[in-house]
Each structure stands twice: as C-alpha cells, then as structure tokens.
C-alpha cells in the first residue's frame, strides 16, 4: 500500500520542493534578468533592478563587440565534431567489449573511467606544448581531438551498456546470413542501438559544449567557443554585470533549449538498463 499523504503534508512538501528548486535556479534567473538591464541599473538593489526599464542594449553591445556567431559556430563545430569522432571510435570499441569480451574487459573499462578522475591540469603543460609543436593551438581540430579524448571513456561506457542489451544471437544470425563484420555493425547493431546512440550523442554534445578548462586554455581567438566568449567579459575590464549576463545567456541558451527538448531522451538514455 502507498503511504498516506495528507493534503497538509502534501502542501508543505510542494512548497519545500519549489523553494529548493527556485533557490537552485535563482542565479540563472538573475542572470537572465540582469541581461535585460542597463549597466547602471544592474548594480542597484534587487527591488530597483526589477522595477527599472527592460532593454536589449546589453545584447547589442555584446554582439557588436565580440562576434557571437563566430563563437557559436566554433562551439557547434567543436561539440558536434568531438562527439561524432568519439562515436566513430567508440562503436567498434564497445562492440568488441560487449560481444567478444576477454578476461580483461572489465578491468579496461574501469581503467578508462579512472582517467576521468585524473586532474586535467596535471596534463595541461604536456598537451599545451604538444599542441604548439603540432600547430594545433587555437585550432578547432585541436579542440575536437582533445574533447573527443576526454569524453571517449564516457562514450564507450554508454555504448557498451546499450550494446550489452542487444541479444548476441541476433548478431550471430546476421553472421549466419552472410553479413561481414562491417555489414553486421552497419545494418544490424547500429540500427538496433539508435536510441542509445542518440542519447550518447546528446549527452556528449552537452558535455563538450560546457567544457571550459581545455577550451579556455587551448584557444585564443580563432577557435574560441562560447566558453571563451563568456570569459572574455569577466575580468579584464572590471565588472560589467549586464554585459556579462547577456553574454552568459547567449552562451547557455542554445544548450538549454536543446536539453529542454530532448530531456525525455536524455533521461531514458541515462537510465537505460537500470530500469526495465
């Protein structure tokens, strides 16, 4: 039997839940509010801020001063590029781990995940110097490679989990039907894993989009994505709250919208296999 919930109890719970939710969301909400204010109004007390005039001024200034669409397209290219490259490499890896596991498969998977626990800053210099030597510094290709490598363990893990759900007999049937390994992966495994692959792509686009450490350290101007775009408004010229807020909103809006429309797919993807 379900636990009895009195109306009063329910009201308290609801209020509490909303309060916590709003508390967590407040900084983002405030950024959105400030982005529509003038620089002068933005530093006033909260009440004055809310009652002052609303304006698009900050957005126009931001777009004028630093080319938003260049940063936006860099973000898109880097996020999509690193994810797709990662998928290309991870599909065969996850295939072999899921369908022809060896005694060491489990260990390799754990080891791959453990690399995520290494402090990134520890390898910053070797990679930075490597990038200089290879001429990859401040290039989109360089970032695509680095972000792909950083997220690869997650991509492999996720795909491995989805592939494990696919009965091996179906792949054996394909083999008996005369399919080569390539055809088996292309015509049978991949179409069956589409929902899982879609979730993986989505999550990794978001992770790559939000990645700030490498994107800030390995770019200057040419390949700078939106993270660098926000950062450029933070320190050197003092605190311009309104412009900084406008820049932040412009940077997070696309991924927020993407996440909003795909939340069902995301949740399904992340709990795949956990819930039947």
């Amino acid at each position: 039997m379900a636990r009895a919930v009195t109306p009063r109890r329910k009201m308290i719970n609801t209020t509490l839940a909303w309060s916590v939710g709003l508390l967590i969301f407040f900084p983002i909400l405030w950024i959105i509010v400030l982005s529509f204010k003038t620089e002068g109004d933005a530093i006033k007390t909260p009440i004055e801020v809310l009652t002052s005039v609303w304006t698009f001024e900050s957005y126009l200034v931001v777009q004028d001063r630093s080319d938003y669409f260049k940063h936006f397209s860099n973000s898109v290219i880097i996020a999509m590029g690193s994810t797709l490259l990662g998928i290309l490499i991870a599909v065969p890896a996850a295939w072999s781990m899921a369908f022809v596991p060896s005694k060491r498969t489990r260990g390799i998977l754990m080891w791959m995940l453990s690399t995520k626990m290494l402090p990134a800053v520890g390898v910053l210099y070797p990679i930075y110097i490597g990038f200089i030597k290879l001429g990859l510094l401040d290039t989109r290709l360089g970032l695509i490679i680095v972000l792909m490598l950083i997220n690869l363990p997650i991509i492999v893990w996720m795909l491995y989990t989805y592939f494990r759900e696919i009965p091996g007999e179906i792949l054996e049937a394909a083999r008996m039907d005369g399919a080569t390994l390539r055809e088996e992966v292309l015509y049978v495994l991949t179409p069956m894993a589409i929902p899982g692959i879609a979730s993986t792509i989505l999550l990794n686009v978001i992770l790559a989009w939000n990645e700030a450490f490498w994107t800030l350290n390995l770019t200057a101007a040419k390949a700078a994505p939106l993270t660098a775009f926000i950062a450029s408004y933070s320190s050197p010229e003092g605190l311009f709250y309104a412009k900084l807020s406008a820049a932040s909103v412009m940077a997070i809006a696309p991924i927020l919208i993407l996440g909003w429309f795909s939340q069902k797919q995301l949740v399904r993807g992340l709990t795949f296999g956990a819930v039947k």
Partner: protein
Amino acid sequence: MGKIELTQVSKSFDDTEVIPPLDLKIEDGEFVVFVGPSGCGKSTLLRLIAGLEDVTTGQVLIDGQDATDIPPAKRGLAMVFQSYALYPHMSVRKNIAFPLRMARLDKSEQDRRVSEAAKVLNLTDYLDRRPGQLSGGQRQRVAIGRAIVREPAAFLFDEPLSNLDAALRVGMRLEISELHKRLATTMIYVTHDQVEAMTMADKIVVLQAGVIEQVGSPMELYRTPRNTFVAGFIGSPRMNLLNGPNATKHDAHTIGIRPEHIAISTRAGDWPGVVGVSEHLGSDTFFHVKCDDFPEPLTVRADGDLDLRYGAKVFLTPDTAHLHRFDQKGLRLK
C-alpha cells in the same frame, strides 16, 4: 549438397573440455537430431558446425572441403535460433530478404524468393509487419523463411520449438518435417526433447557430457540402446532400469524393460506390487507400481480402459523378448 563430417573435433572453454575429440558423419539430405540433457554440449557442437565457435582441435568438412577456418558467413549454412533472433527493426520482408541482400542478389530475384518463401510459410499477409507484431509461431516461421531463401547446403536448428506452447510445437514439428521432405536438404536439429528427436529424425545422435553415446535411427535406439543412458533417455515414459537379484537371474547387472513391455494383471504374475499414481492419457494409462522386489516404482503402460485404484494389488510380468540387459559399466550385453 550438404554432407558434413567432423573428424576429431574437440572444444574447450579456457581449461574446461566441453567436447572431447569426436567423429561424426552426416550424409547429404539427412535429418539429424542432436539430443541430450541440457549442458551435454549439443548446442556447442551445432555452433562448431556453424562456425560461431572455433574448434579447439580437429576438422569440420562441408562437402569434403575443410571449413574449419571458414567464417560462418561463408560456410553456406543457415541457422534457426531458439530465440528466433529476428532483426526487430526490419519488416518481415526485409528480415527474410536479409541473407539475399548480403549475397548481393538483384532486387527482382530477392522479391521472387521472398514471396515464394512467404507463400510456403503462410506469411504473405504479414510481410510488411515488424517481428514485434507477430505471434511466437509466426516469428518462428519468419526465422525459417530467412533460412530457406538462401538455399543453404544445410539447415541448423538450435532448439527452435522450445519457446512455443505445446500445441504449436506439434504443428511446427510437422511443418519442419514436411519442409525437410520437400527440400531434401540436410538438416541438423538440436533438442533436449526426445519426442522431437524420435518423431523427426532420420538419425539421432545422443550426447552426454560432450560424448556421443550412440548414433542411429530412432527405432535402432529404441530397440537396441547401446547403454543404460540411451536406454533411459530414448522412449517416453522412460525405460525401467532394474538392479538386484532379478537382474542377476538374467545374467546382467542391470535389466531394462520399457513400460509398454510389461503386462499388468490383478490375478497372477512375476512381480507382485501395489499401484501408486496413475496417469490417464485417454488411449493409454501409465501406472506407477511399487513392487516388493525393487526400491524404485516401475512404470507400466496399459490400455486406457483399465481402471485400477490407488493402492490396488497387482502383478507385473515383463515380456522377456523385449528385455534389455546391461553389464556393470552400463553397456548393452548381447
């Protein structure tokens, strides 16, 4: 052509030998059934023939050609799996056409063969459905359709009927036998159900712990089981295997007598006993009789009209012409 020969084939997983070296010859057009209790290696043996598992030692010859190192896709064999293993994202038509597509047959030939197979298997109305929308029996037929379109050298069936309910199973059994008569292609069929083995096979291979216990026609195995294992495994209900003084009387360590070869009487006979549970099938009744001479109850087949209550005193008389005698090792005595 579908002549398959295994020479000294063995299989080990890590350090465990699941199939010790064995030899087996399957003639073209034969319906061969591998039968044995679960875990006896019958499915592994089938997978070795299919190429889905690599042999540890030995050779697999298909039509005289050494196929040991040929991948499953190139062996020209078709397989029907226990789980059907249909491609869930493809329509029935595409499922059946898949092997033809892999063989790069032209589209019109693909369509011709698919519709032909669909007609044979009563699937014409379902060609545009997905496997998920079909019943178990229909899925099984799609799996068979996918196997027959490529006109393989041999069909491999891995317990294809075990996911179906009893009534459907009998129907599909007949359909597969019918298919074999019509195509006259080699079929290798794995099952743990000795009834399927007896009813369908030209030749039965009885396996236990990876070892071939006996190879022969259903009636050979029924009449002259080579050892107590085969004697107990083939035939339903199983043969009564008896030890003790009554066996010694026949110069054997163990004697075997099938339920249908024991006469039951309320007046006189060799072995007095008491009726336990009786199973009525309508045409026949199986009585489980506890005799004074044996620790285990004996199964006796009698006419369906014979009515004996629980606890009734009876006498059993074995038909000595159908008595099987085995030595200490369980091997048949001449």
